[in-house]
């Protein structure tokens, strides 16, 4: 049984069925449609104005590879310039191979690349050192949470160093839907409220961030990379199997099998969600140490590093979200666990 003809060009055989619409397209028509949709997301959301200097968070993985490739194709239309920024978290064996993939991409696409390392930015802390410090503390499952907070900070710092005006990350619709599910399951109304929209406009002096692939499904990102023959790195981080996100991903994949539009429906649900006033997060202030946006005295990254430096990493996340000045008695009987801090997405 041959594949049906492409419903767009009617010439070639279809190569995939699109998850949302069910439309059957050939590889060439699909790639053109994918690029046009990213262009529409950027233009309709006014995400990247002409002359923007755009730092692309590049991990070497499929999402950032596709994002960088598509934006490079679109950059003449958009009038933007691109700079790859990669973060070296200091994860032995894993990140070295991923960074090698980013270097190959930068060379092939003739894009400037800057690598910023946790060890340089955070007083010698690598992710491997953080993991050793948290091992046995009952927080080993939180590696991705720690790493997400630090990576966000590192990307911001890298983007500033290259003179970027905007930051883009490769989060796709599945990433967003997983985050929505996780925030629901953790009862984290504040993050649900902030999660909608295509990014943050750059409050409190932070660079504006956006996610041009936010409406692209994981399947389409992977197939775009396949049909365009993009070379990307696809090993799982050594710390990821512990993360809660994996459960949300499995659940989402099962939901998607029963209802292919479930992923995008969840993303749209989060966007339309309205919270009662009491559940809205407080207006963020600024971190007393670094000046970054913070809803407490210290921002998440500074609180986390502070906890690590004091040898009490558990203070930095979870209970520590209350702020270091509000430390309660530790481990008191009946001291019910506070809702943990949400994990930021483990990769960009």
């Amino acid at each position, binding site marked *: *049984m041959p*594949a*049906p003809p492409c419903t767009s060009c009617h010439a070639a*055989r*279809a*190569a*995939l*069925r699109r998850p949302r619409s069910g439309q*059957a397209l050939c*590889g060439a028509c699909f790639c053109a449609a994918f690029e046009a949709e990213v262009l529409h997301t950027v233009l309709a959301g006014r995400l990247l104005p002409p002359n923007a200097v755009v730092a692309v968070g590049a*991990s070497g*993985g*499929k*999402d*950032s590879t596709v994002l960088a490739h598509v934006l490079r194709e679109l950059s003449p239309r958009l009038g933007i310039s691109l700079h790859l920024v990669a973060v070296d978290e200091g994860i032995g064996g894993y990140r070295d191979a*991923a960074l090698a993939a980013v270097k190959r991409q930068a060379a092939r696409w003739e894009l400037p690349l800057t690598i910023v390392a946790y060890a340089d930015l955070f007083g010698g802390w690598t992710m491997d050192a953080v993991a050793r410090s948290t091992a046995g503390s009952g927080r080993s499952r939180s590696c991705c949470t720690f790493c997400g907070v630090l990576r966000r900070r590192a990307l911001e710092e890298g983007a500033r160093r290259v003179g970027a005006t905007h930051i883009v990350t*490769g*989060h796709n619709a*599945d*990433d967003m839907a997983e985050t929505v599910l996780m925030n629901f399951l953790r009862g984290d109304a504040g993050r649900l409220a902030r999660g909608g929209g295509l990014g943050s406009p750059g409050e409190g002096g932070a660079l504006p961030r956006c996610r041009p692939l936010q409406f692209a499904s*994981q*399947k389409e*990102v*992977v*197939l775009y990379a*396949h049909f365009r023959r993009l070379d*990307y*790195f*696809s*090993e*799982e*981080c050594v710390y990821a199997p512990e993360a809660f996100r994996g459960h949300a*991903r*499995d659940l989402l*994949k*099962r939901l*998607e*099998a029963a209802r292919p539009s479930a992923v995008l429906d969840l993303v749209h649900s989060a966007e339309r969600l309205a919270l009662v006033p009491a559940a809205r997060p407080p207006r963020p202030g600024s971190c007393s140490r670094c000046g970054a946006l913070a809803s407490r005295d210290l921002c998440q990254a500074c609180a986390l590093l502070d906890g690590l430096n004091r040898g009490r990493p558990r203070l930095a996340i979870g209970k520590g979200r209350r702020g270091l000045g509000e430390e309660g008695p530790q481990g008191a009987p009946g001291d019910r666990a506070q809702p943990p801090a949400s994990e930021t*997405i*483990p*990769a*960009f």
Partner: protein
Amino acid sequence: MAAPLSVEVEFGGGAELLFDGVKKHQVTLPGQEEPWDIRNLLVWIKKNLLKERPELFIQGDSVRPGILVLINDADWELLGELDYQLQDQDTILFISTLHGG
């Protein structure tokens, strides 16, 4: 009686890690009573190629959700999925979408 088939089985996107890191496998499927389809190819792969953690590749009688299947570079959703009958010299590619970002 279906004749033996020669097909290429490929793994990508991280799925190859469950197969000793080998991406391309040229395989010969023995002759059998029933025609070869993807459903019994998966059983054969599990028995003959899969090296570790089978639950990360196969769930029930199908692939784990999140693994894409391309038959001769076309989405298996267009070709009957598990019921697709293999032809000699077909290329079946399994791509994981679940690895990395």
